[in-house]
């Protein structure tokens, strides 16, 4: 899928750096629907597979949540560029999540995030990570902006 935002643009917005960037590409931004779709490509070279687990590589659930949270920051920046331009600190406050599928090397994780409510100092999003059309995680994330 073509990039709407490439990794250079993503790194202009996200304060995260190696080894903690879990969004490779933004493929869709729909401001009217308050929605973003991003991709995270999984490879056996992803460092977390070395320990999780040596005999059976599985993407950790917390890292899938982190990937969705990073996609949520990118959505926030798309909807509120004037606040994102000030490079605020984003912090997670509360997570409700269901894990539905094992994610492995070779999978392309599709990160879909829709804003439920966003203000200048906080946001609530509904998020979903999928492999193909199969949901791997469904989550509701609440975060603050300082």
């Amino acid at each position: 899928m073509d990039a709407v935002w490439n990794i250079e643009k993503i790194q202009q917005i996200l304060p995260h750096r190696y080894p903690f960037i879990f969004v490779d590409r933004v493929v869709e931004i729909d401001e009217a629907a308050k929605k973003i779709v991003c991709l995270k490509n999984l490879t056996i070279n992803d460092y977390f597979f070395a320990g999780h687990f040596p005999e059976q590589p599985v993407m950790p659930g917390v890292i899938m949540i982190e990937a969705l949270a990073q996609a949520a920051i990118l959505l926030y920046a798309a909807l509120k560029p004037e606040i994102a331009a000030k490079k605020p600190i984003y912090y997670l406050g509360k997570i409700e999540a269901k894990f539905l599928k094992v994610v492995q090397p070779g999978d392309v994780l599709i990160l879909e995030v829709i804003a439920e409510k966003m203000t200048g100092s906080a946001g609530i999003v509904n998020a979903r990570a999928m492999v193909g059309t199969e949901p791997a995680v469904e989550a509701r994330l609440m975060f603050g902006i300082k």
Partner: protein
Amino acid sequence: MPALSEVFKNDIRKIVSEISEVPIVDLKDEAMFAEDLGVDSMMALEIAATIEKKFKVVIPEDQIPNIRSLGNIYELLAKLNPR
């Protein structure tokens, strides 16, 4: 403007109590969320989102910073005329 009924107020107290983790008996209508109850901007947003779902109203974004006490929520909801 009609005042909110006690039934509505009780539902709102329940929502605020659950999100703030402050027992209902300790929730005074005039207590300030941030100063007295430790409710931060994220919890205030969660309270607003929960109230929107529960009462089928839309709280305008610019009104959310004004949610600073239970009393504020009653006033705001009375204006929004919940069903």
